[in-house]
């Protein structure tokens, strides 16, 4: 299949795998963050392309992170594969249930209701002393599919890269399928889709579960990478707001966009946190305004333009 995107994805994966062998530890950590954040944002973009912006993706991110964490913390299972799978499963099941309610809403109401559920989880986590309440707790990753890890950090990075590759590839094919086409159609004109004979709610529900699973996987990978989970960096509404921000910042037309956007975001955040801790939010805000006003296609549109003129 002469699909350029597929070839580019494979090339990117290979580059990442090679880089994993030669890059210093800090670079690998940074790349891991960009990768798992990108996975979450990929899910957000699926929903945005279906016409819905969730302000509560932190719910699934937190579920994935805490699932991974409790596996180590409470059940002494420090296996990365298990963490990722359980994170995805927990998020998917909750999304399946909540989806029956949430798919009835649109626009602001969908946004607010999704925010509400993430804040409910936040409240539960803060009040839970076994889960460390506001401090959260630490975790470590010792094995992958039972195999002991000598360099956990690198393995986590590699796993993140492979999952990112699979997720991006899957999403690319999904958008070319009938269901993927329906997402854009629903965003444009839900009424017409319904009138053509298919259930809009069912499609939204499916996409919602997929985006939740991706957020759950991202959360699990985050927990593994950072080695710590707490309510504020996962379930609080400002974290969900960050995901929304990165989605808009990245652009929604390419499966590469979320990873590029996440990488830039993370780089700026690290830089700002070190040198301008009190103006980090302002920087974010101004950047967001700039992108909204002048780059409606996100930073990816800049990248596309550069590629074309090259």
């Amino acid at each position: 299949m002469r699909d350029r995107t597929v070839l580019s994805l494979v090339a990117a994966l290979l580059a990442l795998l090679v880089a994993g062998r030669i890059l210093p530890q800090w670079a690998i950590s940074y790349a891991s963050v960009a990768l798992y954040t990108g996975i979450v944002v990929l899910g957000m973009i699926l929903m945005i392309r279906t016409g819905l912006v969730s302000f509560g993706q932190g719910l699934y991110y937190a579920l994935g992170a805490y699932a991974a964490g409790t596996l180590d913390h409470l059940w002494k299972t420090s296996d990365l594969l298990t963490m990722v799978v359980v994170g995805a499963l927990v998020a998917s099941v909750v999304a399946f249930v909540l989806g029956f309610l949430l798919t009835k809403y649109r626009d602001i109401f969908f946004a607010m209701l999704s925010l509400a559920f993430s804040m409910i989880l936040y409240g539960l986590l803060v009040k839970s002393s076994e889960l460390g309440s506001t401090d959260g707790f630490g975790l470590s990753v010792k094995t992958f599919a039972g195999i002991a890890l000598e360099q956990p950090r690198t393995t986590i990075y590699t796993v993140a890269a492979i999952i990112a590759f699979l997720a991006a590839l899957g999403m690319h094919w999904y958008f070319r399928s009938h269901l993927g086409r329906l997402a854009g159609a629903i965003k444009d004109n839900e009424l017409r889709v319904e009138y053509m004979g298919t259930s809009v709610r069912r499609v939204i529900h499916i996409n919602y579960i997929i985006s939740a699973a991706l957020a759950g996987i991202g959360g699990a990978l985050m927990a593994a990478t950072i080695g710590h989970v707490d309510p504020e960096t996962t379930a609080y509404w400002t974290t969900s707001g960050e995901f929304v921000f990165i989605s808009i910042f990245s652009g929604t037309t390419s499966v590469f966009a979320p990873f590029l956007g996440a990488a830039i975001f993370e780089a700026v955040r690290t830089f700002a946190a070190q040198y301008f801790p009190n103006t980090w939010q302002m920087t974010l805000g101004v950047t967001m305004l700039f992108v909204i006003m002048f780059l409606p296609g996100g930073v990816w549109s800049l990248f596309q333009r550069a590629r074309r003129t090259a």
Partner: protein
Amino acid sequence: MLAQVPAILIDGVMAASMMFIIAVGLTLIYGVMKILNVAHGSLYALGAYTAATFAGLWLSGGHAPLGSYAVLVASAIVVGLVTGPVIERGLLRFMYGRDEIVLVLVTYAVFLVLEDLTKLVFGVDPLLVAEPYGLLGNLDIGPLTYPTYSVALIGVALIVGAVLAFVINKTKAGKMLRAVIHDREMSAAVGINVARVYLVTFTVGAMLAALGGALTAPTTSVQPGIGAEKIVLAFAIVVIGGLGSLGGAALGALIVGIVQAAAVHWKPELELFSVYIVMAIVLIVRPKGLFAIPEARKI
């Protein structure tokens, strides 16, 4: 347990009064401009910081303590009058016509900017100017004792509500407002200066947010992050009450205030998210909130 009901109701109403002042501005802005103003939270914080700072200066300057109340209110008005036009004319105006969700993101960006701006101007240390809070002494309601200040705030909320209700329902300006809420295009077509309505609405909304902050400032320690906390509660209130409805903001505030008070008294573990559970329940039963504005047919 039942013995706590009076306390819950009073605590709830007091909290509701404060929340109402913030929420009513938010719902007004949404009703007229169809924008969910996330920056409302930072305007609240800005109001709190400004009021606390100037009231503190006033009091330490040896002026009449009762005058500090005027300083609080004046600070709020100034904050609103400055930030309102700057944000609306300087930024929002260029975004009208774009998707609702884009406008929410714009106000979210403004929120982020204002959060740091506030930190830069006022510093990150907590600010506590409690004198105005204790100045009026205490009031006995049955066996319970409350600061008179908190009770007075209920009065302030009622006045704000009454004034807004009067303006919206009984004045010509209010009629224009209602026209714009109903149909922006039609209003422009009949000659209403929609741009001016927007400017005034947003400025009044900003003033109300700042007023909420200013009046709350003496009761608490003003520090970074108070805006973020309040804005999500305000969201919950306006969604519960119905976006754009004055009565909805009042009822929503009451529900949220009482539910939170009940949680604090009966089940403290639920305090943090009791509000969101209520919001979810209300939205399930009434998908557009309690007093929603009906929509016209599409085809």
